[in-house]
């Protein structure tokens, strides 16, 4: 009958009206400044630098200033200056560190290539989207102090990724430690064997000097 469609339509909108008051599935509006958006884990925009320790961000940067990201960056928004000296990294190994690390977020295109090429898991994608600045030169050019964020923050925004990185790094460190231990043990063994082995190998009568030296215990 004529008009039945109108009544059906009115029923649909009436359902919307009632549902909008009690059904959160219907009301999808986020009232932004008060309600923070729930970003999906894979959301990314600009890179940040991971530090091991939140209390000493500049001392514990994972970045070793290898400059791979700088070279790979398609819009070339990364600028790195290597340090002249070396500082121990998280594992205590002396490493170079970035004396200057700047990212121009007005140029960055959020492609994540820097993250993919970094061999040290030192640069990751951030989720801050309120990046408005009053000055486009100084406001959007972020230096390493602004870029450095602790690993705990990385865990917060990308939990899956961060967990994977941490387990991998831990495994690598463990392997490195074991390797170092093995190397040290091998060295010690070699050092221990040294006085014995050269004697039969050389078997020269004129070799009293090494034999005279007492074997030193491995210090490592």
């Amino acid at each position, binding site marked *: *009958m*004529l*008009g039945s*469609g*109108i009544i059906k*339509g*009115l029923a*649909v*909108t*009436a359902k*919307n*009206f009632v*549902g*909008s*008051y009690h059904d959160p599935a*219907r*009301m*999808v*509006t986020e*009232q932004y400044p008060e309600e923070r958006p729930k970003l999906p884990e894979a959301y990314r925009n600009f890179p940040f630098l991971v530090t091991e320790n939140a209390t000493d961000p500049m001392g514990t940067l994972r970045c070793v200033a290898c400059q791979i990201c700088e070279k790979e960056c398609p819009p070339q928004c990364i600028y790195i200056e290597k340090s002249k000296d070396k500082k121990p990294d998280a594992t205590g190994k002396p490493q170079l560190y970035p004396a200057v690390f700047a990212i121009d977020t007005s140029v960055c295109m959020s492609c994540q290539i820097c993250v993919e090429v970094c061999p040290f898991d030192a640069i990751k994608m951030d989720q801050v989207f309120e990046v408005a600045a009053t000055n486009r030169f100084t406001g959007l050019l972020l230096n390493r102090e602004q870029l450095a964020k602790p690993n705990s923050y990385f865990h917060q925004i990308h939990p899956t990724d961060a967990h994977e990185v941490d387990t991998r790094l831990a495994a690598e460190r463990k392997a490195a430690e074991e390797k170092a231990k093995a190397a040290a043990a091998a060295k010690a063994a070699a050092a221990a064997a040294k006085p014995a082995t050269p004697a039969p190998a050389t078997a020269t009568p004129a070799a009293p000097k090494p034999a005279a030296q007492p074997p030193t215990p491995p210090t490592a």
Partner: protein
Amino acid sequence: MNSSGLSLLSAHLPVAAAADGLLERLPLTLRDTFVQWFPAPTQWLLHHLISIVGILAIFGLFFAFTTVAERKLLGRLQNRLGPNRAGVPKFSFLPFHLKHKLFGLTQPFADAVKALTKEDIVPAAADKLLHFLAPVLVVAFSLLTFAVLPFGRNLIPVELDAALLYFFAAGSATELTIFMAGWASRNKYSLLSAMRALAQVISYELPLLLSVIPVVLVAGTLSTQEIVVAQGFWTFGLLPHWFIFTPWGAAGFLLFLVAALAESNRSPFDLPEAESELIAGHLTEYSGFKYALFFMAEYFGLTALSGLGVTLFLGGWQAPCAFLQFIPSYLWFMGKLVGMIVFFIWVRGTLLRLRIDQLTRLSWQFLVPLALINLGNAAFWALTGAWSGPLQIVRWAVSAALIVVPFVLMGRSLTRGQAPRTYRYAT
């Protein structure tokens, strides 16, 4: 209103005691106390000035809150929130800042300030005088119609014998201003749109009037106040004798609703200024507060037509049940008016805009014949007023059949080949 008319009127009121309640007489008492402070020769003038100021103030505010209610309701109908941001501005002279957003209810005042501070552009080639007069007159004409609406038992600004005639005469004058706006803009698109708008408004004037005539026929008067009084009876004190609860009244009310929607350029008949298709129709060359005035006049027109619908079909200021008469009559009128407006907003949130050919087809091939049949139906109803007992059932059945059968048959012929619609590309 003169007192003799009032006493005549209250003589045949169903419950005369309700007319003298304190709350019921409150607006009149306030007016009379105020008028008494002034010398006698100026009192009649003040008397009417107060009515005018009252209408302007109440319906100005009503317009303001209708806009925000419309936006909020449309939002809810579409699962959105609607405006909820505008709160109280920070007044520097106050030591504190009220930060509550007040559910966005101050939005219309922000809109008014925006409209007032916008640049008013008049095209160089425009007819300056007409271009200025059109928005002024459209508001004036649409406000004139409020003069004959009975807002309460004792509240009617001007009591005319031919109130309905006056209502439609004043209401139709707004059509003139539509063409004035289109012509004065000296813009061919404005002019064409004005002609389109005029065509629509004139097409729907006929079904609007034809849907109202049955009421006049049955009530036997053109006076709006007397039409309301004619609806002031209850069966068992519970079932009101409003005209909408008769077969011809229900049909007339539906026809009136459709025609009123078209007459006030509301969705789904908002072709004249279809926002998503045209720029603004005949309002293309208007900006700032002049545009806001047209907007205002549109809402005044809608409110006045809703008020007329309430008066003619929904019992005006009459309470729905006899025991609810302790609530002042003007509150009943405003409640019904708000209900009508909410229904119009609901329709706007639901229906799609018609095409111009569908619009005229609906009017001339469906509404006008149906309204004519309904007129005959009302004549039958008026002639059989003396029937009682089982004949009452016959009366109701015949009257209902007289409207339902033509509706179904004409609906079929109107939609033949149109429905159900098959979509070639959408699934």
